[in-house]
């Protein structure tokens, strides 16, 4: 337990000591909220969708969690390059524990990020549907964070250096985000896009957030929870397997 705690604590300390990262990581969600929220708002309204900010805000919260989690997971590559990974790898600690500690740390950081973005969205005009559902919203935020931190860790365990990072951003993270229903409703989409959205785990995260924060789930909350939970557990196991295979 104390091992998981110290690994978790390390992730938090590293995050909060990097002021540039703290501020920099808020730029994108704010830009998206303002530019897309106010840019597409009138058209969305005219098309009969209602208030676009209400629709968009949970999507942007999910986006900020997605980016921060993947980034936290990928941090293993930095640790490998700058040597600290060796210190963890030679320790007489099970690889699963290391994986859990790191993932919980990264997920906590990402969830906090999501909460900050949620607070910012209040200033842009977002209003949560019901206060009672808010804690469930937090559960979904943490689940999204866990899932993608585990995914980031699994991927990073297979990479030697940061060369592959751009590839992951453009061919995995961006598609996950754009094809998740974060920006547009999943109803009435072309078949191909609909299929992709349905197998994209982030769709269920966005849906869970929207369901709990503004009361408008496309799937249903139980299904969202189940899909996210199962995939997270699978990724944790795959991640710790790949992590245990790392050679330096």
């Amino acid at each position, binding site marked *: 337990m104390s091992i998981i705690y*110290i690994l978790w604590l390390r992730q938090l*300390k590293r995050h909060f000591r990097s002021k540039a990262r703290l501020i920099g990581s808020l730029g994108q969600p704010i830009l998206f909220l303002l530019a897309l929220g106010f840019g597409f708002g009138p058209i969305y309204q005219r098309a009969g969708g209602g208030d676009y900010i209400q629709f968009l805000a949970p999507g942007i919260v999910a986006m900020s969690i997605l980016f921060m989690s993947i980034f936290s997971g990928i941090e293993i590559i930095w640790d490998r390059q*700058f*040597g600290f990974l060796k210190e963890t790898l030679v*320790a007489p600690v*099970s690889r699963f524990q290391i994986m859990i500690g790191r993932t919980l740390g990264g997920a906590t950081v990402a969830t906090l990020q999501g909460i900050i973005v949620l607070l910012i969205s209040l200033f842009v005009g977002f209003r949560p549907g019901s206060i009672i559902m808010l804690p469930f919203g937090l559960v979904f935020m943490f689940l999204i964070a866990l899932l993608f931190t585990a995914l980031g860790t699994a991927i990073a365990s297979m990479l*030697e250096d*940061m060369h592959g990072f751009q590839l992951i951003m453009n061919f995995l993270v961006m598609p996950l985000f754009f094809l998740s229903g974060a920006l547009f409703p999943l109803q009435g989409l072309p078949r191909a896009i609909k299929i992709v959205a349905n197998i994209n785990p982030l769709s269920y995260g966005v849906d869970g957030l929207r369901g709990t924060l503004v009361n408008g789930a496309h799937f249903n909350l139980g299904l969202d929870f189940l899909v996210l939970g199962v995939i997270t557990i699978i990724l944790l196991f795959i991640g710790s397997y790949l992590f245990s295979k790392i050679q330096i």
Partner: protein
Amino acid sequence: MNIMIRVENLTKKFGDFIAVNNISFSVDKGEIFAFLGPNGAGKTTTIKMLTTLLKPSNGEIIINSHSPVAEPDDVRRSFGIVFQDPSLDDRLTAYENMEFHGVLYKIPKDIRRFRIEQLLKFVELWERKNNLVEDFSGGMKRRLEIARGFLHHPKILFLDEPTLGLDPQTRSHIWDYIKNLNKEEGVTVFFTTHYMDEAEKIAERIAIIDYGKIVARGTPEELKSKTNTNSLEEAFLSFTGRSIREQEANGVERMRMRRKLFKR
């Protein structure tokens, strides 16, 4: 005599390149053993295989009667290591780096606190215990790495060029500590160094590796008399020749350079 480290026909290949070529040796319990060789001879690769970081291509290793491949956790419980290249978290303070290590190695809290204070004072970093490692000089980082390596008292201590870049005062200070640890607690010491005077003074037995093969072994005296030389340095040169070895900049070096550009 008890054997602490036994290596038989150990080989490591990276593609076509044979980094370690069919080497065998053993280190007794409580012995101080030096593993010497020019740059790129295979020292660090061997240490990585001994410490579970790398899987051998061939051959057998037994550490404290366990195999690093089959029972990595038992092996990991047996040793401590000071790496050749940096392995600190520079976003953490000196104290936090020590604390992190102590928790990973399950050292009880009161012993942990006591030893951290003692060791940080020993390497003269106690006053700067709450400073981030990224603000430390090269020598300070090195001292902290060494202090961290001594924190849990293992059966075997691997030291990969531990004193690289340290001034003579600090070096002798640290070697005194290691010798003491060896005498008091019977810790087996396996080290590499480029300072031949250190090896001559401290090592009980030496193996010299070159191009992945062990080219000589014995006590410092034996090596000197075999080559008819007066110092270990001359003996070393006579075994390994005078040509300068090239080592390719590896990914880590390149990354470090890039990071310097990237930062701020």
